[in-house]
């Protein structure tokens, strides 16, 4: 029955890829437009997860219903963070270094606040579908992971359509590719930065609602996720959303096989090894720009 096992693992890997893709695409968007490596991104996913958890626990609200609420709350948080912290730093000569330190500090603050408020107990939201599965022959597809994957891909597709076909979406892409040129053509690059940041953080909130029933979580778990997300963004090519999404599926499938053959402990290691290998062999990733030598 080794064949059935192989198919089963592929399905499980793909099912997890969606949520990773959603977490990664927000990070990738923010990096692409703002050149901010937002180390706090997964800690904000965690905030989304707690919103969904408490809405379910206290009000019995389905995480799928909470999702748009978490998205809006986090997007608003993004606007505040941008205005209070990142807008000022944008003119700093040490911008890149500063944003790494700032987002690192932000991640610590968020973790500390969540830990104080909700303790370090492991939580998971448990709507009915989270523990249910579809069966196709002997292959089972966990409903929770399937739904979260579908919702993630739907949100990412909406983002892709917005970026490709709306005037403002085009301005976002243009700013990512050539900030000065976009400004010369009349794009308000500061507004583009603000909106992209809000969307990116909003996506973290949406991902949080899905994560809340796919994984068990506690405040400090975001450190594991940032390592995973960095590997997705690097493999995809810094700033490429399509690349990040593909990388999410590729790596989560590989991780699922590694987990099957070598045990669950080794599964996460896949992402870190991939990070090193990509940086050594193909630093521009799948869709990134070739690094400039000069």
């Amino acid at each position, binding site marked *: 029955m080794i064949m059935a096992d192989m198919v089963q693992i592929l399905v499980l890997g793909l099912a997890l890829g969606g949520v990773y893709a959603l977490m990664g695409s927000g990070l990738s968007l923010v990096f692409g437009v703002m050149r901010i490596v937002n180390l706090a991104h997964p800690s904000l996913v965690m905030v989304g997860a707690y919103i969904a958890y408490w809405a379910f626990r206290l009000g019995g609200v389905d995480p799928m219903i909470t999702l748009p609420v978490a998205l809006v709350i986090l997007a608003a948080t993004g606007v505040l963070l941008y205005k209070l912290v990142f807008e000022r730093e944008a003119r700093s000569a040490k911008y890149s270094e500063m944003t790494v330190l700032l987002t690192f500090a932000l991640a610590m603050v968020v973790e500390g606040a969540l830990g104080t408020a909700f303790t370090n107990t492991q939580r998971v939201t448990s709507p009915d579908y989270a523990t249910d599965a579809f069966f196709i022959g002997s292959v089972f597809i966990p409903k929770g992971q399937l739904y979260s994957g579908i919702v993630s891909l739907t949100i990412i597709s909406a983002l892709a359509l917005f970026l490709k076909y709306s005037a403002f979406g*085009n*301005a976002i892409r*243009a700013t990512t590719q050539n900030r*000065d*040129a976009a400004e010369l*053509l*009349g794009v308000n690059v500061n507004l583009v930065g603000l909106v992209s940041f809000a969307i990116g953080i909003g996506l973290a909130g949406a991902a949080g609602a899905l994560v809340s029933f796919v994984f068990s979580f506690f405040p400090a778990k975001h450190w594991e996720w940032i390592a995973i997300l960095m590997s997705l963004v690097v493999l995809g090519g810094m700033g490429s959303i399509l690349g990040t999404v593909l990388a999410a599926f590729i790596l989560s499938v590989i991780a699922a096989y590694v987990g099957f053959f070598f045990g669950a402990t080794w599964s996460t290691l896949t992402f870190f090894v991939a990070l090193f290998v990509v940086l050594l062999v193909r630093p521009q990733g799948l869709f990134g720009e070739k690094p400039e030598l000069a």
Partner: protein
Amino acid sequence: MNDLLQVSNVVAGYGDGPAILNGASVKVESGKVHCIIGPNGAGKSTLLKAIVGMLRVREGDVTFKGESVKGLRPDQILRKGICFVPQERALFPKMTVRENLRMGGYSMRDKSELERRIDEIEERFLILKERRDQQAGTLSGGQQQTLSMARTMILKPEVVMLDEPSLGLAPKIVAEIFDIMRVMTEEGITILLVEQNALMGLKHADWGVVLDLGRTLFEGPGKEILNDPRIQELYLGGKKAA
């Protein structure tokens, strides 16, 4: 008299750094091609960036149609009718040719008018029509420059400023770039050009301006400047040695 754009004794530099321009002056007359030449580090590109508002003008003034435009942001300058094509060609490499043209009209309200103008541009520059769905980054250097210049025409600007459009292009392609410039002047667009290739630039220019060490050394009709002995001096390093 009839100066469309006038730069008077401008002092400017990058950030808080030293001044690169130390009192540069240029007069731009409507409908003509103007070429700024000068050795490396003379401040040619800096002058264009100061006009367009990418750099702060510390002293002096920039007037457009008799009105000061000093201190305006690049997007405000654009709305006044001055387009700037920087040296790096300013394209969006991963967007298609058509999307790049569309970005050229980002500041236009009327989007159906924008699409109509893009169609017009495509008819005039057929290579852009042929390659409309190709990513701009995959075009050849000459095609990229064509796209950059054609894109400015979407807004029907009064002045187009070009920073070294011939940079890194083969001589045959450079000739094509100057052809496009002629097309632009036929449309009534005034051109202010910066060229490292002084010979080529001055040959095609109605008016030449020689810049050195951030100051205007002298100016005059392109062909006269071309034959001015002082040019030899400037480019060949000092007076003719024995």
